[in-house]
């Protein structure tokens, strides 16, 4: 059973609260939820909506046809009525007028009733969220009583946890004993800053300096002094940091950069999502120097890959870019999988204070003094390449790619980052390819964008030699992973499904696109 609920209204009306209440109740009953947040760049007014998908099986996407619309205003009804299924239900706002700001709580109550969930479960959730407020409970009850039950979401025996990518990156950082997170606010990267600031105690520290340029340079200073340091931004802020990344390439000071992309170029469509910054993650910064680029595809992978990023940067004195996007950072995923064991991140190098330690953005000799010698310049350039070789070898210990479905399936879908979970859902919707492992499709998820795994070439050749279809799925205009694969392997993927309207794929939309190839 899978249903899709849209909750819409003006910014500030508490749309997210409805999603939160309902998804917490449903996951506590063992269901999987996925909550997509769609909002323009404004603080009050406008039209925001969430789409909450609920299923008794694993999901990581939403569908375009709606079972329930929760309308906090008239505009929501008008804008979304065409997306309703024939027997769809609308929860309106008119009958709850006298409740004022508690409209969202009443509508949550109404929703719980329609889903066929016990009233007491609702009351317990409301009490825990609103500090036993009688007013909140009364609003929830009023909503509950206003509806008839339509579905039956009975309790399942399963532990499911809800998480968005921002929280997961923060957890991964805390697991790695991060000392400092330095950032300047920029959507959609700011979520990690908020999550880590909220977790500040006696442990790590979150610092917001004057510019992204100050962010990257102060991070280099802090890491030089021995702090495990991470910074974060989105495209524009990342662009400002790139001179610093280049300096890192010379100075070899460990640095992790969280890059949460949004649609560009320019200020673009700031609160929406696009995978358009792989190119700049791979290449931002002048000169030739080692770097690692990792793109997790769901929150559990965010926890694991943040840990790997900090580990690799510290071990090799390299820059590691952790690539995400608005969809992964802010959508609420649910999972019953626990993250892998944490790798210990140890600062073993000598740092200033313990002795005299120098690091330079200039080419330097072995004592880090400036040199313009041709011989030494060549020697250290060679050393940078050798170091990248060692980094590659270490990366092979981790999951650089993941293959889902039957390894011998006829067709291969390739994707990365936030498209992972919708690809899995779409392939299951086609023929259960992933869940039963017997369908016509398998999915190769690329997690390490640099270094790139040799597995990709093997899989593409295996499928195309056997006459199967290889399909690239990306949420960008030019197929950036496809171009990268072509650069590294010489193989061109002809079938490309690219979406670049800044909205993530709907599961049913992607299914049709794949079937159309």
């Amino acid at each position, binding site marked *: 059973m899978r249903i899709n609920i849209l909750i819409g209204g003006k910014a500030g009306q508490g749309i997210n609260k409805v999603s939160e209440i309902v998804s917490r109740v449903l996951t506590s009953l063992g269901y999987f939820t996925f909550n997509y947040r769609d909002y323009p760049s404004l603080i009050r007014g406008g039209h925001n909506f969430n789409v909450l998908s609920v299923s008794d099986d694993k999901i990581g996407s939403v569908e375009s046809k709606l079972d329930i619309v929760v309308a906090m205003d008239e505009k929501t009804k008008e804008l979304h009525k065409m997306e309703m299924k024939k027997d769809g239900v609308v929860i309106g706002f008119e009958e709850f007028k006298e409740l004022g700001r508690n409209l969202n709580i009443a509508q949550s109550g109404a929703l719980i009733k329609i889903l066929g969930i016990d009233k007491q479960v609702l009351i317990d959730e409301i009490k825990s969220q609103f500090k036993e407020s009688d007013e909140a409970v009364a609003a929830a009850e009023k909503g509950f009583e206003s509806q008839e039950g339509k579905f039956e979401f009975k309790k399942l025996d399963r532990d499911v946890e809800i998480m968005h990518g921002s929280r997961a990156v923060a957890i991964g950082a805390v697991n790695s004993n991060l*000392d*400092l997170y*330095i950032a300047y606010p920029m959507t959609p990267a700011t979520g990690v800053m908020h999550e880590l600031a909220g977790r*500040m105690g*006696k*442990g*790590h*520290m979150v*610092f917001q*300096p*004057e*510019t992204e*340029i*100050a962010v990257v*340079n*102060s*991070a*280099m*200073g*802090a*890491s*030089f*002094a*021995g*702090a*495990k*340091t991470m910074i974060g931004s989105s495209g524009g802020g990342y662009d400002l940091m790139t*001179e*610093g990344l280049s*300096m890192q390439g010379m*100075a070899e*000071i460990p640095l992790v950069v969280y890059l949460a992309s949004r649609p560009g170029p320019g200020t673009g469509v700031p609160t929406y999502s696009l995978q358009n910054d792989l190119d700049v993650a791979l290449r931002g910064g002048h000169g030739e120097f080692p770097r690692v680029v990792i793109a997790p595809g769901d929150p559990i992978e965010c926890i694991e890959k943040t840990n790997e990023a900090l580990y690799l940067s510290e071990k090799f004195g390299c820059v590691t870019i952790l690539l995400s996007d608005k969809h992964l950072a802010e959508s609420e995923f649910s999972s019953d999988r626990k993250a892998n064991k944490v790798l210990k991140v140890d*600062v073993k190098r000598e*740092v*200033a*204070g*313990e*002795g*005299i*330690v*120098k*690091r*330079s*953005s*200039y080419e330097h000799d072995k004592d880090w*003094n*400036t040199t313009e010698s041709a011989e030494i310049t060549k020697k250290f350039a060679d050393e940078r390449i050798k170091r990248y070789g060692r980094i590659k070898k270490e990366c092979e210990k981790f999951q650089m790619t993941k293959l889902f479905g039957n390894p011998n399936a006829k067709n291969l879908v390739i994707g990365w980052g936030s498209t992972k979970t919708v690809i899995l859902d779409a392939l299951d919707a086609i023929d259960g390819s992933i869940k039963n492992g017997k369908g016509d499709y398998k999915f190769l998820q690329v997690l390490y964008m640099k270094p790139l795994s040799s597995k990709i070439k093997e899989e593409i050749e295996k499928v195309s030699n056997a006459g199967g279809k290889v399909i690239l799925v990306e949420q960008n205009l030019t197929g950036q992973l496809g171009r990268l694969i072509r650069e590294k392997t010489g193989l061109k993927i002809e079938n490309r499904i690219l979406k670049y309207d800044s909205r993530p794929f709907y599961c049913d939309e992607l299914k049709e696109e794949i079937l159309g190839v």
Partner: protein
Amino acid sequence: MDDINEIKKNLGTKEVNTWCPGCPNFLILESVKTALAGLISKGVYRQEDFAMTTDIGCSSKIYDYLNISGIYGLHGRSLATGLGVTLGNPNLKVLSFMGDGGCFDEGIAHFMHAGRYNADMTLIVHDNQSFSLTTGQPTATSQEGYISKASPLGDADFPLNPIKVALAAGIGFIARCNARDFKHTAEILEKAIQHKGFSYVEIIQDCLIFNKNVNNKDDRMYKIENNSDKKKAEKIAGEYDYNNGHGKGKIALGVIYSEDKPALYEKWEQLKALKEKGVGWKG
């Protein structure tokens, strides 16, 4: 304690010095060594306790000639890098070296915020009123009308007065020195380094190759007593406008303003704890 000359020798390196012969940067290097050696010999700091961050430009070549920890960073970013070092280990004594171009053109945003953060560090600006390592283009402190290869018709803009900017930005220790008076400079630097929080020391220096019109101002310089009166500091700052009509405006040297404010490590519990333990995040 060790002989001060021995300590000074240890503060030097064997690197070939590439400053122009006779450049006042040699005197600034001497003043810095004297100040550090003084502090080390008194047991205030160990040589390992210092960390420098340097910019790009003639000033910043000092990285190669000073035997203390440090980062030779990017143009304009010395303060940001230095701020980071204090975040990474509040027990390190940070010296940031910059030129007037790096500090007041490329990197002025960092200067404007340095007083607010009040990290425990000292900014030393080698001010020769020109971008000398790139062959003499005008900087924010160059005089109006300065003719260079980049400004053949004369620089059209009036100069910034760094002391006024520093006062406006709430910097808690502001001093000005003359590179040629290296003993006085060393004394001021020692004070600046011991000041709790951010300290700014501007060192007026001649460039022997570029913008020579602003050189040789020694006869207009005079020394002041340590001042902590803001009104008086503003008056002193206004005496010299860096526009350098010859013979106009007295140039005060010494501590123009100082004030005790909470340092960065006192404002953050995490840093306070590290400071008390005498370690950085590494432990």
